[in-house]
């Protein structure tokens, strides 16, 4: 038996870091906290790699040849009643280990990068302390052994995200963005909480091992119709997905993600590209057996929401000019694809291709998207602007950034043999098996992806050279080395035979590239790239012409389809006018009014008895007298009864 109990340290190290740096960090030079945090992350990274190695290659497989699910660590946290208790622990299975790798790798890179990027910032120590808090919560989330533990860390992740988005707290836009992110996701968590209550109420457990095991109570209970023709289980899984959709910025709960770009760029790379935003995908994957066997309707909801979000975000991404916002919408679009893949997936072997594809894409996406964000950070660092129109011709000044950015763009566009190609191909293949229409939609999305990424690429690195105040220069080593390492990941991650490790039933299987899917996909990607090249490599009026030709549609897309305005309308106009105002009026006029009315009557009456009483307590006396009268009446009633 292989011992995995040390994995609990992967959780404890960042927690200790957070407490120590948070409390004592300001006793030392800022750099000390940065280096301490990075060193801690390095240890966690190594531990995760060792765990992955031991789990996949050393540990014996279960009798049927699948990877085991094992509790590396478990403790009884709360004993509530004789039957209800809550545990905390570390659950190891292929997807949690994959997430460990993704989180620690990206987080480590981001830590190293941040030492350079955040250099000289006020609050350097606060930044690293919060990053540690984030790492702790995110890791706790992925290794959760039960829904309750997941919910706890889910909320903690939300708070660390809040603190990091609002890192520049003197900037009003950053403060507003952090608040928006927290409130929107917290609203979504409402659904998560209700879903957890429903699920655990009908199945009798929070525990993942029981819930997703072969004889899960979720498969047999809660099948009765609850409401609107859907079963209890379906409702609970839809509610739980609502939580996931909030964290993963799925339509219509996506509005916080673009604004979250107000945070420092390394934070965007870590939290809003690679780790926290995929928590929703991870949640659905974690509960996948319940979705597929007990709540297929809920799984359809996942599929449609994912597909719609992916195309919706891809269209918006084509119209934005802030490079971080383009990347944010791109993230939303890619996560939509992951959700879509889960939604179309079946269970077991090739049936479960979508599941595997979703996890695979999550894995590769983490590399190239965090690379894109870190690259964007290096660019912003060099030219001090976020807007792509104010850039151009940067390839001369930033050779390393340029090369790595290009690799990431090619990877996300799905050009072989880069990582994005493999995972996206599997998603399209899975979609193709399920629904032709959605397959076409996703193909369009992948074409659009190639287009907007290369629009970004050409506008930044090619095109007309803008006059810069200072000659832009490449960032320091601490920033470029993580870029290069992540570029290696983006290049090679696709070559991992992913289906041998991660699959819906944890049983390894062989997946192969289907030429019928791969060739059109690559062609679509190339078309996107060439269109972008045509439009943006040299300055032309073509984009404007097309933008104008599409008229209202492109305007709507530029304004993000007015979703923010809809929310504003609902919250400000409807809720404020029809709920808040009546309540305020009610409180002022009815509740207080009634009491003041009584007080007025009391006053008037007490005018009469004032002669007999001096002192401040005549009200009290009056109440007392009337009380005695009331008392006598009531008493007579009670005793005669």
């Amino acid at each position: 038996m292989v011992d995995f109990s040390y994995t609990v340290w992967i959780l404890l190290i960042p927690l200790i870091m957070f407490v120590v740096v948070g409390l004592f960090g300001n006793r030392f030079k800022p750099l000390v906290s940065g280096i301490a945090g990075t060193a801690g992350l390095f240890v966690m990274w190594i531990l995760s790699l060792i765990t992955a190695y031991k789990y996949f290659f050393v540990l014996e497989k279960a009798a049927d040849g699948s990877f085991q699910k094992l509790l590396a660590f478990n403790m009884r946290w709360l004993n509530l009643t004789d039957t209800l208790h809550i545990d905390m622990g570390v659950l190891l299975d292929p997807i949690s280990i994959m997430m460990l790798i993704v989180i620690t790798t990206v987080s480590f890179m981001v830590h190293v990068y941040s030492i350079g990027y955040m250099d000289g910032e006020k609050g350097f120590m606060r930044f690293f302390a919060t990053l540690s808090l984030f790492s702790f919560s995110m890791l706790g989330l992925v290794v959760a052994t039960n829904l309750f533990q997941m919910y706890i860390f889910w909320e903690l992740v939300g708070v660390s995200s809040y603190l990091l988005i609002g890192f520049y707290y003197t900037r009003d836009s950053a403060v507003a963005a952090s608040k928006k992110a927290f409130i929107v996701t917290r609203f979504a968590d409402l659904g998560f909480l209700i879903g957890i209550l429903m699920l655990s109420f009908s199945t009798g457990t929070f525990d993942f091992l029981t819930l997703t095991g072969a004889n899960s109570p979720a498969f047999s209970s809660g099948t009765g119709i609850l409401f609107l023709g859907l079963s209890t289980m379906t409702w609970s899984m839809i509610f739980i997905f609502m939580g996931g959709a909030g964290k993963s910025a799925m339509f219509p709960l996506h509005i916080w993600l673009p604004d979250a770009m107000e945070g420092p760029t390394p934070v965007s790379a870590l939290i809003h590209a690679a780790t926290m935003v995929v928590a929703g995908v991870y949640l659905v994957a974690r509960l996948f057996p319940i979705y597929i066997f007990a709540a297929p309707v809920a799984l359809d909801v996942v599929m449609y929401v994912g597909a719609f979000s992916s195309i919706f975000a891809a269209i918006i991404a084509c119209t934005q000019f802030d490079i971080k916002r383009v990347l944010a919408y791109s993230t939303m679009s890619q996560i939509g694809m992951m959700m879509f893949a889960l939604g179309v997936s079946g269970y077991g072997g090739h049936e479960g291709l979508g599941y595997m594809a979703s996890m695979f894409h999550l894995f590769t996406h983490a590399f190239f998207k965090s690379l894109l964000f870190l690259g964007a950070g290096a660019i912003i660092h060099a030219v001090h602007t976020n807007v792509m129109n104010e850039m151009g011709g940067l390839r001369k000044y930033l050779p390393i950034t340029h090369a790595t950015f290009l690799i990431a763009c090619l990877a996300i566009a799905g050009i072989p043999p880069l990582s994005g190609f493999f995972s996206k191909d599997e998603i399209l293949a899975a979609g193709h098996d399920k629904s032709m229409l959605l397959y076409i939609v996703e193909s369009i999305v992948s074409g659009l992806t190639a287009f907007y990424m290369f629009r970004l690429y050409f506008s930044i690195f090619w095109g007309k050279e803008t006059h810069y105040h200072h000659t832009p220069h490449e960032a320091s080593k601490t920033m470029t080395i993580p870029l290069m390492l992540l570029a290696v990941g983006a290049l090679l991650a696709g070559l991992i035979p992913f289906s041998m490790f991660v699959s819906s039933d944890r049983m390894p299987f062989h997946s192969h590239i289907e030429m019928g899917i791969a060739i059109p996909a690559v062609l679509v990607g190339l078309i996107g790239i060439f269109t972008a090249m045509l439009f943006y490599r040299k300055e032309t009026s073509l984009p404007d012409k097309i933008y104008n030709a599409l008229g209202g549609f492109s305007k709507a897309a530029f304004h993000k389809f007015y979703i923010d305005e809809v929310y504003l309308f609902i919250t400000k106009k409807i809720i404020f006018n029809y709920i808040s105002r009546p309540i305020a009026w009610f409180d002022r006029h009815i509740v207080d009014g009634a009491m003041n009315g009584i007080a007025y009557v009391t006053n008037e009456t007490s005018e009469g008895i004032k002669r007999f009483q001096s002192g401040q307590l005549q009200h009290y006396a009056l109440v007392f007298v009337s009380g005695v009268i009331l008392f006598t009446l009531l008493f007579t009633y009670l005793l005669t009864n």
Partner: protein
Amino acid sequence: MILLFLILILLAGGALAWITGKWSDLLPRVISLVALSLDLILLIAIYNGQSAAGNNSWWIDYRVDWIPTFGISLHLAIDGLSMLLLALTMFIGLVSVLISWKEIHEKTGFFHFNILWILSGISGVFLSMDLFLFYFFWELMLVPMYFLISIWGHENRIYASYKFFIYTQASGLLMFLSIIALYFIHGRSTGIYTFDYIQLLGTTMAPTVAFILMSGFLAAFLVKLPVVPFHNWLPDAHTEAPTAGSVILAGLLLKTGAYGLIRFVLPLFPEASVTFAPAGMILGVIGILYGAKLAFAQTDLKRLVAYTSVSHMGFVILGVYAFNEIAMQGVVVQMIAHALSTGALFILVGQLYERIHTRDMDRMGGLWKQVPVMGATGIIFAMASLGLPGLGNFIAEFLILAGTFQASILMTCLACAGLVAATIYSLRIVQKVFLGKEKTTWNISDLSVREKIISASLVITLVYLGMLPQQVIDTAKPSVLKSLNSIEQTRSQNTGKPTGEASIWCDEINTDGASAKYLKCKLW
């Protein structure tokens, strides 16, 4: 005897503080600290002795006749719930004395006399096993609080203190009526005229009579809690009181209402309580949403915090009337967590007021830069108030919601919305005070050592409660079950079978459509 000492120490300490206040400002403070610490040590001794003995019912029961002619006795008893609340009382008391160290300079002796007498009244309420004695202590805490607000309060203190006094006094009188009536009804049916709680349990009376008597008790407790629409005294009293007053009001006085519900209303009037339960839960939900809504509309920081109390205490009444063990445990944790987190927020407001002499949030902003430690603790307290996991309120609210879920799904969903509202108003505090641009340039100092000790002790207790609430839950468990027992009996008499609902939440695990059916019938 030791229970009597708990109260006497505070009473004597108060008197001593008043006398010595004539000569020195320092002496009353020190005397108060000593008296409270002494009580806290006594409580810890009782607790340790108890956990060694492992006895589950009343830990200590002390009884001597007071006025035997009328069946009034000096009957004090302590169990897990009283223990927790008493410990909380002493802790909050210590904090209140410490925060007033620099704030109060006028009539220091009398101030501390009032504080200690309020606390002794509260301790008496938590210990009394005789209804007459209970009423005596209930009144005892009012007058000093009235003085506290009207002498050391802010601008509008006279109005606020009046309002507080009238509301609580009037409602208290209604309870007294009920107590007298209960005394006579019990006396008539059994021939024993007594105010003793234990003996009055199980008094038989007609349902209408029971309901009327219960209403008297409810009047006192719901006003204290407070429940909308009887909440109007609270924002005024909390806002105008000195910081120590606000902390004691929010942390302890409100809890006497919740304690009264659990200790007296449910066991004395189980049938009437079952009848009242749906209304109680609705009142709870209204309180949660209504309080949150009003909190959101305030610009006065202290008033905002005051309204959050209305919202948080809505969870308490919701949980009490859900009638199950989990929700009730949540209520107990919520009582403690709310005392700590809201008390902490009031302290924060006090610390700010001492520095910038305003409570208007529109004039604050960007203060984190100037006062990093205060900002960090402020964020932690706001996070506690919005129910962040790891801090006390989360456990409480989760347990209450999980328990309520069995009683009514609709109510639970509405109450969940309160969590979002809590997020909005708590973030608003953080954002308006500490983040953003500075609206006015204040030149202020960060927390002093004394203030750091206060804040740190609150943070530590909140984290402890959030991470390791097992001890609290275990301590309160027998009391909670005791209170629910009568309700369970009533219910099983009504339905003719035990009410073990099917779930992990209760004993048996159900299968198939049963849960859906059950959920459906609970849905509306």
